[in-house]
């Protein structure tokens, strides 16, 4: 089977995002062929997830003062910065009738396999981590997302850190840190990695594209034919850019689900544990575990990653933490799992309490709380 391979560099945030969505719609409708797009954004832009709120995720004043555009992706997940050293990977494929959710999950496995195979050829021992990350030794290297267009077309998107200016990222994005010292910088550097760091080489974006394209060719068993957007596609992209991605009502929309933050500090015989949690509704969106205890950065990063997008139910949180401890408790160097469980559960409870007004009215006249269905 043949797929198109489209390469573009230095695109604007609005064009880059509109192109991904427009292609997904067209591929789903059978108007365009499946396409792998390997591209970079003009340095730099800040892209938030589909349902995030700009003010929660991005330092908008800093972005404005430094001409860093902010935009909203069609895919979910967290805020990122993109520029010349971050490779955007967008694969657009048709869905399979109504059975698209499970189909997308199957394809997500192959999509991540394409990326992993490409990275493996560089000697980078990358692996897929639920739900949508690729990591190396517990450090995040690639973030991925999936979007299903109304036409049924599927967009698989990944942002791969070939390199990253961590200091800039921390100035652009809101972080759980009260200040940005070298310690905080080191903490973040311990949680993420880049292809250049892992390979110890100044690999170029063009070299990167070659190995990733080969990875996809082999994972999906397809031939990639170099191509460009057609005139019709460019017109569709320009229209979507004007109608959506250049509009403030798209970028600055808010969600009905508030972010809720909570933190907890616990003194233990092995040191202080400092946990900060951000929740989206009842789901854990992000966890930061710090303090003055000694533990392997990889183990802590692994623990944080295992709780990301996890239910906040206390007993399930405890199970997830115990699971990480199994087999690698030595890396936590004397910190007992029960203390981490207590700290995380306490931070979650405080986040829940932060904005949880008592409901004063019933759920609406069409619903009987506790009844079988409306």
């Amino acid at each position, binding site marked *: 089977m043949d797929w198109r391979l489209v390469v573009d560099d230095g695109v604007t945030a609005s064009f880059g995002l509109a192109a991904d969505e427009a292609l997904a719609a067209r591929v789903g409708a059978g108007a365009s062929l499946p396409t792998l797009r390997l591209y970079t954004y003009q340095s730099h832009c800040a892209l938030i997830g589909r349902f995030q709120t700009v003010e929660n995720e991005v330092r908008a004043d800093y972005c404005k003062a430094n001409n860093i555009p902010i935009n909203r992706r069609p895919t979910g997940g967290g805020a990122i910065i993109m520029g010349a050293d971050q490779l955007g990977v967008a694969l657009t494929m048709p869905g399979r009738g109504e059975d698209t*959710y499970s189909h997308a999950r199957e394809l997500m496995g192959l999509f991540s396999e394409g990326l992993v195979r490409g990275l493996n050829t560089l000697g980078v021992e990358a692996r897929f981590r*639920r739900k949508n990350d690729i990591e190396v030794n517990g450090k995040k290297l690639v973030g991925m997302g999936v979007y299903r267009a109304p036409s049924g077309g599927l967009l698989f998107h990944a942002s791969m850190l070939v390199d990253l200016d961590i200091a800039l990222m921390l100035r652009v994005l809101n972080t759980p840190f009260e200040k940005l010292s070298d310690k905080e910088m080191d903490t973040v550097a311990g949680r993420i990695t880049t292809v250049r760091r892992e390979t110890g080489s100044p690999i170029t974006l063009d070299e990167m594209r070659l190995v990733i394209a080969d990875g996809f060719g082999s994972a999906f068993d397809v031939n990639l034919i170099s191509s460009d957007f057609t005139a019709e596609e460019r017109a569709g992209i320009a229209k979507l850019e004007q109608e959506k991605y250049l509009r403030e009502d798209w970028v600055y929309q808010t969600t009905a689900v508030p972010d809720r933050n909570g933190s907890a500090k616990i003194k233990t015989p092995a040191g202080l544990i400092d946990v900060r949690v951000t929740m989206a509704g009842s789901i854990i969106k992000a966890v930061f575990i710090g303090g003055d205890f000694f533990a392997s950065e990889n183990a802590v990063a692994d623990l944080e990653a295992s709780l990301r997008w996890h239910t906040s139910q206390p007993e399930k949180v405890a199970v997830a933490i115990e699971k990480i401890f199994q087999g690698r408790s030595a890396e936590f160097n004397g910190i007992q799992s029960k203390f981490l469980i207590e700290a995380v559960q306490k931070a979650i409870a405080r986040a829940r309490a932060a904005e949880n007004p008592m409901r004063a009215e019933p759920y609406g006249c069409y619903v009987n709380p506790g009844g079988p269905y409306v």
Partner: protein
Amino acid sequence: MQREKRAIPDDLFYDRNDFWIKVAEEAVIGLTDYGQGNIGDILYLELVPAGTVVRRGERCGSIESGKWVGSLLAPVSGMIVETNRDAEADPHMVNADPFGRGWLYRIEPADRNEIGLLMDSGAYQAWMEERICLEEKNSQGWID
């Protein structure tokens, strides 16, 4: 693999995008138990505002679970008369109580003949089982 038993109430209609439809003067729409389980923990839910007219198969909202974002497609044409704002504020309701507090919206059907295109509980059960078999066959080891 032990499969979770999914509720399929008898007095509802269903479509192939895993929506249930309770038909009366107006229709109430929600996501089925199988549908919510398939999508996973729902983080965000956005529905088009009341008053919006949609056609069958058209987008009437968006949903995010983990990093998956998808469109909600209307199972019947009509005007949306009310959305479940509580579920929008706490989308976990859709996972926890898909046939109750997690309902999505009420719609005034424009063409009642479209009801005939929906499945009854028996047909949906067969459709669901067919897909579960397909998922197991095609599984690449991705398990939520």
